[in-house]
């Protein structure tokens, strides 16, 4: 028998620091698979942020940086302008990119800096115990919205897509094989256009934090399919710098 699927060679030979069913583990694994398949590990830089997602840098033996909360795009802007030959992927959570870092996220997008942002959206702050974030769904109970969140969630991919400079903006998911393959294709495309055209891409990925959301890992795939995707449509918003399809509300 031959091996037809296994752990990426880029991942270290030790268990990940994530909780069971953590979508950061899943999304990051897929990112590193893409890096390995594209054979760009030598130029690749992992731009880390604050939050559970930041631990991703410790699971691989790739060049990385970790920054102050929300400021990942600022550091990445300078690094990429000074070293345009590197392939830079920023991995942030929704709290990092859409709350404290929203301004920096949008300004880097507006500058069209040549990096790729992957924003894992699990609708809360996982590392600090499950507080509400700008993408928390209405009615969702978190440690700071115990009676249920009021107000609409922020749709970050749509926000970024209103800007002219971004080349590729999409929202993906990873809760089934179909969406996993779509996400890997999207990320490969984003990294390719970064390398070929110096293009800025933004990919929001729906995620679940089982420890803080109350949604168990085995229920998370159904939750994303039936609930999260209703608020956060999974689709492309911009390709080649132009809007893709109609903007839905």
């Amino acid at each position, binding site marked *: 028998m031959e091996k037809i699927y296994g752990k990426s060679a880029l991942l270290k030979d030790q268990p990940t620091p994530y909780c069971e069913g953590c979508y950061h583990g899943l999304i990051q694994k897929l990112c590193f698979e893409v890096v390995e398949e594209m054979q760009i*590990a*030598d*130029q*690749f*830089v992992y731009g*880390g942020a604050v939050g559970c997602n930041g631990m991703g*840098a410790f699971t691989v*033996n*790739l*060049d*990385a*940086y*970790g*920054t*102050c909360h929300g*400021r990942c795009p*600022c*550091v*990445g*802007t*300078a*690094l990429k*302008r*000074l*070293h345009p*030959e*590197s*392939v830079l992927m920023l991995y942030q959570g929704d709290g990092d990119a859409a709350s404290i870092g929203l*301004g*920096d996220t949008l*300004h880097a997008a507006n500058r069209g800096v040549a990096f790729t942002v992957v924003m894992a959206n699990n609708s809360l702050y996982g590392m600090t115990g499950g507080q509400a974030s700008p993408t928390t769904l209405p009615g969702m109970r978190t440690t700071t919205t115990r009676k249920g969140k009021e107000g609409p969630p922020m749709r970050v991919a749509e926000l970024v897509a209103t800007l002219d400079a971004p080349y590729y903006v999409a929202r993906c998911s990873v809760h089934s094989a179909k969406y996993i393959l779509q996400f890997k294709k999207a990320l490969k495309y984003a990294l390719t256009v970064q390398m070929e055209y110096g293009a800025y891409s933004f990919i929001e990925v729906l995620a679940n934090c089982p420890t803080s959301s109350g949604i168990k890992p085995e229920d998370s795939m159904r939750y994303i399919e039936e609930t999260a995707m209703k608020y956060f449509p999974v689709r492309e918003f911009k390709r080649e710098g132009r809007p893709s399809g109609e903007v839905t509300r």
Partner: protein
Amino acid sequence: MKKVMKGNEAVAETAIRSGLEFFCGYPITPQSELLEYMSCRLPEEGKIFIQAESEIGSSQMLTGASIAGARCMTATSGPGLSLMAEALACMALGRLPCVLVDVQRAFNCITPAQMDYNFVTKGFGHSGQHGFVLAPSTVQEAADCTKLAFEKAYQYNVPAVVLMDGMIGQMMEAVELPEKVEKPEAVSYPIPIGRGSRPDKKAFYQSGYGGQYKGLSSEAACEEACNDNAALYQKWAETEALCEAYWMEDAEYAIVSYGSSARICLDTVHMLRDQGIKAGLARPITVFPFPEKQIGALQGLKGVLCVEMAKPEQFAKDVALCLGKSIPMQTYTRCGGNLPDPQEAAEIIRKMAAGEVS
């Protein structure tokens, strides 16, 4: 050859000649001319200029440029400095080099002050770690301190601060600029730009303290970084502190002041000398490391007057620590953007000399 230049522009041009590769900043009075000058001149040199979205953005871009191994700089004033606290705290603890120019102003007033002294000398933000802080008092000295700031920043891998104020930033004076540094040395830490030819050893910067403490727990790494930095600051105190003594050889009364306040007090010294009072001026040029030895050596004086543009006193407290109770000390402060009056300063010393003030 000397040319007449605005302080902000002299600092900017000197930075470019000192090997500056990356500047990011944000408009704020009274340093905006520095930002504008950089936006034109840096691209002429093939270097990078970015106007950031805020001082938070510019201080974090500065971090990124430093991680990327570039000679980098930003400039701001008091309100922007407060916003930069987090980034500076991380860079100081993590030993990332950069140059920061603070053109001080009086809070919301755009007129000069020296209210940022504590911020830059008592340890940045939540790490309590230090930068190397220089305080010029003329446009020429601002240029010289900028060149020195680059040297010290990249020698020790620390943030180096040029602490000036709106008066020096805005005034025009004759200045002789240094020769251009053709090829600055490379930085001494690994830069994360891809594994490249080093597959087993990644370059990793974690905000706060970098990869040099790999393998340790967070607590152990933080403590080790703090211990290393404390030893460095001790070394600075012994070897790097700079202080100017003006007419101090036979002085009986000394004015201790820095920056623009000290410059104004030169008039005070001359006035007092004309009236037969032997006055002198001791002027710290590095305010971190504070010239403890030089100020502590002011023995046998009949009185000391500390002059600064901050209330409550900031600089005067450091002077008092060095002098102890051995010499009677008075303070003269103006703030809110008001400048010290050399006559008022002279009057205080006259009263000390006449025994009217204890």
